[in-house]
Structure formats: C-alpha cells, structure tokens
C-alpha cells in the first residue's frame, strides 16, 4: 500500500470517537497536578466533556459510514449503535461517581482516565471488522476495567474482585485468541467478511478445524458476557467492585462483548450456523435458569443484580439463537434497555450503600419509599423494567426477543424463557415490597439527600427506560436497519 493512502482524512473521522477518548484520558492524567488543587469535581466534568464529544463524534462519523484503515474498522449503523450505547453507559457511570468518590476520599484522575480508556477499547471493539482489532479493543477495555474493579485498593473485597476479574478475564482471552489463531490458520485471513467468504467458497477449510475455532471463541466470549456455564466470576466481581464500577461492568463491557459476539457469529460463522446453534441454545437456557434461580437465594443486592445480569445475558443469547436479522435487532434493543435499567438500579445501590459500602442488603432497602420517595420511585421503574412489565423498555426487549425466537421456530426455548421471566419477577418484587411495605431501616433513615449528579444518574436512565417502553419503534427501526451484518 502506498504511503499516501495509509491515512486519509475519512479514516480519521471514522476513528474520531476513539481518538477523542484516548486523548481526553491522557489529558486528565497529565493535568492531574494542576486540577487536583482547584476542584475535586474537575476530573468528572472533564471526562463528561470528553464523553459528550465522543458521542457527537460517533454520530458525526455515521454521516459518512464505511470502512476505515483498509477494512480493519467498519463504521456502520451497528457500530454506531453500540458506540453510542457504551459512551452513554460511561456518562451514566460518571454521574453517580462524583458522590461515591467523594465519600471514599478517592477522587483521582486515574479513575476517569481508566474509564475513558475502557470505553475507547469498547468503541474499537464494536467497530472492528477484523479479529485482531477485536482482540485489541477487547484487551484495552478489559485491562482498564480490571484496575477499575480494584480501584479502592485498601478494600479487601475490591482486591478480590479485581483479582478474580483479571484471572478469569485473561483466561477467557486465551481461549478467544486461540480460536482466532485457528481461523487464521484455516482461512488465511482474520477479516470478518473474508472469513465468511472463505467458509462459503470452493476451497472451504475442514469443518472440524473451523468448528474447534468457533467453539474456542464461543468459550472466550461467553466468559466475557458472563453466560453460563462460564458465569462463576460475575457475582464475586460485581459484589466486590465499587458500585459505580459494577454498574459500568454490567452494562458497558457486556454490551460491547455482545456486539462482537453478534458480529462474529452472524458474519464470519454464519455459514456454520447449524453447528453453533445448539451450543448457544444450551448456554442461553442455562444462563437464564442459573441466573434466575440463584438470584432467588441472594440477600446482597449487588450479588442479586449480578445473578440477574447472568439471566439477562441468557435472554440476549436467545436472540442470537434465533440467528436472523430480527433476532439481531432484538438483541440490540434489549442491550440498550438493559443498560438503562441496570445502570439505574446500581446507581440507587451506590446512593444507599453509604461510606465503605456498608448497606448492600435487601433489608437495607426497607422503608426507602417512605424516606426518599423519588429514589424509590426511580428504582421501581428499573425493577419493573427488569421484570418486563409493559410500558418499560424491558418489556419490549423481551417481547422482541421471544418474537424473534418464535419466528425461528424456537418454541421450547421461548416457553422456558418465559417461565424463567416469571421466576425472576419474584426476586425483583421482593425488593419492591421491602421498599414500600416495611419500616425504614438504618440505611434508609441515614441516606444522604440526592445530589445533583445522582438525581441525573437516576432520572436519565428512568427516562430512557420509559422512552424505550413507550416509543420502542424509534430505537427498533434503527436497530432493524443496522442488523443485516452479512454484506
């Protein structure tokens, strides 16, 4: 390739969100000594500014969609959808972080810089069109989030959380990468569309080899999205990590990992779909069942939400099992709805938990409706959405997923999935009953008044949940137009 073609302006525009996030993250660390003396909130403001700029850049880049850097990146509707989603999750993570960090005397530039780097990695992941680029994005995102999970480094639980996340995350990466090596060896390419072409072409490689590769990559990705039987790390990691970070981990990296899951399996491995469908079918059912039944037994709310997030990963896998464009669109819609409701729910936990995160139990939510009606009302919206009650995003998410599954004749999976949702209603309702029908607990009585950042962190996702529930077609139509990944 001639040097003059190496970088052209269009490529840079398509790569702008990642550039902005990386520059802003580095700037935060460089400016640390100056800003630290002025105001402890400056870091938060600056990273919000960076995220807002990246959000605008993502939308701007979509005005002229297409490949960048010789086909290594692909900026299409799918990539833009997930870029906006992960950047949005970043904004909703920083809002409750102001108060959380102040409460723990832990306001540093690193927290925000790492968050921005992690989001940059996720943006790269979702727009990558090549397995090695996906791997790099995945690692940029993961390595930054390993540190974030252990950010409160004197806290034993945070240490443990970071260690487990790191060990199991790297283990999963090993599997994913070995799968990439096999794909490279059997097809001679790592470009997603070229792999698709090689698998359908006249000299198609041995199906055994490709099958092993797909299985290895499935294991790696299932770890990353915390799908059963590779979900064991999630409860400990989510419980031990600082709550705003938990909110981030349960939505951002997960959505990005699902994005590459969809892109790889619906593009590259689409020709061998009959082979991987039973694998994903089993994992979907197992995730829903394990997640929901284990959540019934939890008394710690962060742990409960961790198991619930495993169950929700199962629902998204149902959409993947449908292996149709409708299924892909349903998965995209669900991940958006899930991001709003889950980040919102964790923001409430972050608000209530107090210094040292003492109050994390279901009992601590007792009487919250009496003491802080607004917080309780917002949490009610999130919980109803997690259950899947109509007029919330969670309802339409489930509705579209099971509709897509039925259209692909997955009757049993749909029936078992719906039964699972019914089981799930129990543990979410338990939290609601606790909030409204019990005498106020120590935690609810001592809860601080809502700060501006926290109010925004609760009201924005609540609005998002309701908008997705009342006007689902706005998002669904865009998802539907972007869901045809095989080009």
């Amino acid at each position, binding site marked *: 390739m001639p040097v003059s073609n190496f970088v052209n302006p269009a490529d840079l525009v398509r790569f702008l969100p990642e550039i902005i996030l990386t520059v802003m993250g580095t700037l935060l660390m460089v400016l640390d000594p100056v800003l630290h003396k002025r105001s402890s909130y400056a870091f938060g403001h600056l990273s919000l500014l960076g995220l807002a700029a990246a959000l605008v850049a993502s939308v701007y880049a979509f005005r002229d969609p297409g490949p960048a850097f010789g086909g290594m990146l692909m900026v299409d509707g799918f990539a833009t959808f997930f870029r906006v989603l992960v950047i949005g999750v970043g904004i909703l993570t920083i809002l409750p972080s102001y108060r959380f960090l102040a409460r723990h005397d832990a306001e540093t530039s690193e927290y925000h810089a790492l968050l921005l780097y992690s989001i940059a990695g996720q943006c790269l992941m979702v727009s990558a069109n090549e397995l*090695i680029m996906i*791997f*790099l994005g995945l*690692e940029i995102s993961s*390595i930054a989030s*390993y*540190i974030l999970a*252990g950010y409160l*480094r*004197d806290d*034993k*639980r945070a*240490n*443990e*959380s*970071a*260690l*487990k996340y*790191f*060990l199991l995350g*790297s*283990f999963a*990466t*090993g599997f994913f*990468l*070995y799968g*990439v*090596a*096999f794909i*490279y*060896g059997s097809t*001679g390419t*790592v470009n997603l569309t070229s792999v698709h072409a090689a698998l359908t072409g006249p000299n198609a490689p041995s199906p055994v080899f490709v099958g092993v590769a797909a299985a290895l990559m499935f294991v790696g990705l299932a770890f990353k999205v915390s799908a059963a039987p590779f979900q064991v790390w999630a*409860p*400990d990691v989510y*419980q*031990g990590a600082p709550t705003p970070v938990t909110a981030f981990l349960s939505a951002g990296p997960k959505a990005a990992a699902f994005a590459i899951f969809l892109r790889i399996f619906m593009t590259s491995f689409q020709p061998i779909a009959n082979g991987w469908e039973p694998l994903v079918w089993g994992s979907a059912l197992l995730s829903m069942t394990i997640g929901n039944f284990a959540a019934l*037994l*939890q*008394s*710690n709310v962060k*742990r409960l939400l961790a198991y619930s997030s495993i169950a929700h990963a199962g629902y998204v896998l149902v959409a993947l099992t449908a292996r149709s464009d409708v299924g892909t669109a349903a998965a995209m819609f669900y991940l958006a709805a899930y991001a709003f409701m889950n980040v919102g729910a964790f923001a409430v936990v972050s608000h209530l938990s107090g210094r040292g995160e003492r109050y994390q139990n279901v009992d601590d939510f007792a009487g919250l409706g009496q003491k802080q009606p607004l917080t309780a009302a917002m949490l009610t919206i999130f919980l109803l959405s997690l259950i899947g009650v109509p007029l919330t995003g969670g309802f339409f998410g489930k509705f579209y997923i099971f509709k897509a599954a039925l259209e692909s004749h997955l009757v049993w999976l749909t029936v078992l999935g719906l039964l699972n949702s019914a089981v799930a209603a129990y543990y979410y309702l338990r939290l609601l009953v606790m909030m409204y029908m019990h005498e106020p607990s120590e935690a609810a009585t001592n809860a601080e008044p809502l700060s501006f950042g926290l109010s925004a962190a609760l009201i924005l996702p609540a609005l998002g949940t309701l908008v997705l529930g009342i006007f689902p077609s706005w998002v669904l139509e865009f998802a539907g137009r972007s869901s045809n990944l095989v080009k």
Partner: protein
Amino acid sequence: MSAVPISWYLTLSAVIFALGVAGFLFRHNIITVFMSIELMLNAVNLSFVTFSYQLKQVNGHLFTFFVMVVAAAEAAVGLAIILTVFKNRSTLNIDDIDSMKN
C-alpha cells in the same frame, strides 16, 4: 526445506495450551495461575507463527507482536493487582481468597 512437519508445531502448541489450562484450573498459587495464562498466550503465538509460515504470509508474525504487547500490559496490571491482594491478606493461596458469599 522444512525438516520438522508443520503438524508437530501445532501439536506442541496445543499441548502447551492444554498445560496452561490445566495449570490455571489446578494450581493454588496465584502467581503460578497467572504464569499458566501467559503459557496459554504463548501457545497461541506459536500457532500464529506456524500458520503464518505455512501460509507464506507476514500477518501471523505481526499478530504475535500484538499478543506480546497485550501480554506485557496484562502482566503489569496483573502483578500490581496480585501485590495489593498480598499486601491486604498476606497470602497467595487462591483458596483463601473467598470473602464474598452469602
């Protein structure tokens, strides 16, 4: 030219990868577990180089550099995390690190 058949390299790589997985699952010292992960990544590197040689392409060689850089970054972060765990608990036995349950 090639005295050793390609399949031998691939077998070696698979064996090393399996050793890494076994080490990860069965060893109790955190440092050893971490080394097992590095072993897995290096097994992958060996496959990349082998495939690259077989395909007469340069790409696979380049991928190993990416993998090495990522592995180095992972080592830096991982060892730092392991150090803080040791500082707070004075143990490196993975079975002792289970403070979170109901």
